[in-house]
């Protein structure tokens, strides 16, 4: 069955697309049929990173029913075993993807016959982005060691946690829960998933149990990218400990990726960074991460339709 790795990060420029393409190349290189899907609609650039300057088809052709199957819009890349569904030329923005089309796309992604599927989710935390993130238990967060990026990643993790809870309730039920949370925990608490979860456990023990099970099943990971020499290598681990201690959500720190100006050079030359500069610290980090990510993937595919 396919493993799906949604790659998200609160902030633009943290390296989601770079990492998606690098991981994709490594997975394809190890002989696995690998598909990259550019869900950063409106700001798609995955195609450029895998050397398809003029993608002939894109996801919107499927969404707009120009092609009946998601397979129909898959593009071959110059790299053996590596395929792409481009988000280029898209007139639609992921944030505005209508509900039915989102469900349709989610179902279609889950059914695709690839061994590895990587989703480049783009920045931000729109509902659709979060739903795509929650399509699998293997979601990967990526951030850089800067307050702005950390701020966004904390917010994104909270939002995704919250979104999963939200998916289990009707609008009315949820409003009632929100009211009670505010009442018990005070004004600022309505957007705190940890408070909401306590309330769910109290008022809807069955759903609480199911959610708790889901949350233990998730194997979310955090990657810190663009670490410079002066940055603290322990930061990622500490962030994960904080999240576990205060949100009760397990996010595993998967590793750091060193900053290297050659990434920029490789992108400008439109060549694979890993092939062009294989012996850099950064390339080693990415390879190590890729091995870790593949070996620790859950064996069960999980999809949550909201």
């Amino acid at each position, binding site marked *: 069955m396919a493993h799906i790795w949604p790659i998200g990060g609160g902030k633009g420029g943290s390296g989601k697309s770079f990492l998606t393409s690098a991981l994709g190349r490594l997975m394809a290189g190890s002989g696995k049929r690998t598909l990259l899907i550019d869900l950063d609609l409106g700001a798609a650039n995955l195609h450029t990173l895998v050397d398809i300057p003029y993608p002939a088809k894109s996801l919107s052709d499927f969404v707009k029913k120009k092609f009946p199957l998601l397979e129909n819009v898959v593009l071959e890349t110059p790299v053996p075993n590596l395929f792409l569904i481009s988000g280029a030329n898209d007139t639609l923005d992921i944030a505005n993807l209508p509900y039915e089309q989102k469900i349709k796309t989610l179902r279609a992604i889950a059914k695709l016959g690839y061994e590895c599927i990587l989703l480049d989710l783009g920045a931000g935390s729109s509902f659709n982005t979060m739903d795509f993130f929650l399509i699998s238990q293997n979601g990967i967060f990526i951030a850089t*060691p800067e*307050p702005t990026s*950390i*701020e966004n990643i*904390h*917010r994104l993790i909270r939002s995704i946690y919250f979104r999963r809870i939200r998916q289990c309730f009707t609008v009315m039920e949820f*409003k*009632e829960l*929100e*009211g*009670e949370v*505010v*009442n*018990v925990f005070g004004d*600022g608490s309505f957007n705190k*998933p*940890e*408070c909401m*979860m*306590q309330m769910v*456990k109290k008022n809807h023990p069955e759903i609480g149990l199911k959610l*708790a099970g889901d*949350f233990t099943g998730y194997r979310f990971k955090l990657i810190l990218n663009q670490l410079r020499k002066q940055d*603290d290598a322990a*930061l990622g681990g*500490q*962030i994960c*400990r*904080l999240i576990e*201690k*205060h*949100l*009760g*959500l397990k996010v595993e720190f998967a590793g750091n990726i060193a900053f290297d100006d050659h990434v920029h050079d490789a992108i400008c030359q439109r060549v694979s960074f890993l092939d062009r500069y294989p012996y850099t610290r950064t390339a080693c980090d990415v390879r190590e991460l890729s091995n870790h990510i593949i070996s620790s993937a859950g064996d069960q595919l999980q999809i949550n339709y909201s």
Partner: protein
Amino acid sequence: MEMNFTKLNYYEMLDVKPDVAFFEIRHAYNAALQMYQADSLVSYSFFSQSERKEILTLLEKAYLTLNNEKERQDYDNDLIRLGILTEAAKKSPSKMPVSIFDINRDQCKTGGLKNTDAEFRARIAANERIEKILAKQEIRGGDLKVIRNELAVPLEKIAQKTKVRIDYLRSIEEENIEALPALVFLKGFIKSYLKCLCIEPLDEIYSRYINCLAGLGKKS
């Protein structure tokens, strides 16, 4: 799962085992400061200012207590008395890898309502004044207050049991529209109030009350 920092014991706050050596406590405190201090990148934006302040105060308290032999002894004894810590876990360092904390333990139950629902129902059925009120088409805040007084339940107890803020409860009885929360929230609060006193049929009584409020100009 999700934990409330203020409910952790000092060892849990500092992420150390109860048999931890003294020198490690300082180390743990420093590590915690690295995570929680205002300029820490780790928790940047994760807490509000007041949350952070509370955590730092608690951490300092935890550190000062555990780092003092006498105070730590007293604190340990308290934990043992509360059944949170076992004598064995404290004395035989790291013999067994079992968790000694029951993280999911309930908070101490501070005496809720003693009256049972059945008792309330019986008393309501036997009380003429309440019967009369429940038969009315219009149910006002004052009516609810009368029922509550007939049942001799102080507002504080309802607040305690329903966890609805007492000023909201009071505003419900006083029909103090300005002070009431938005309708989506209010709905749950009123129902909790009614449920707590076993006033039935719940939905029916709720509608009669809320209709009166609407008449007074409460908008969603």
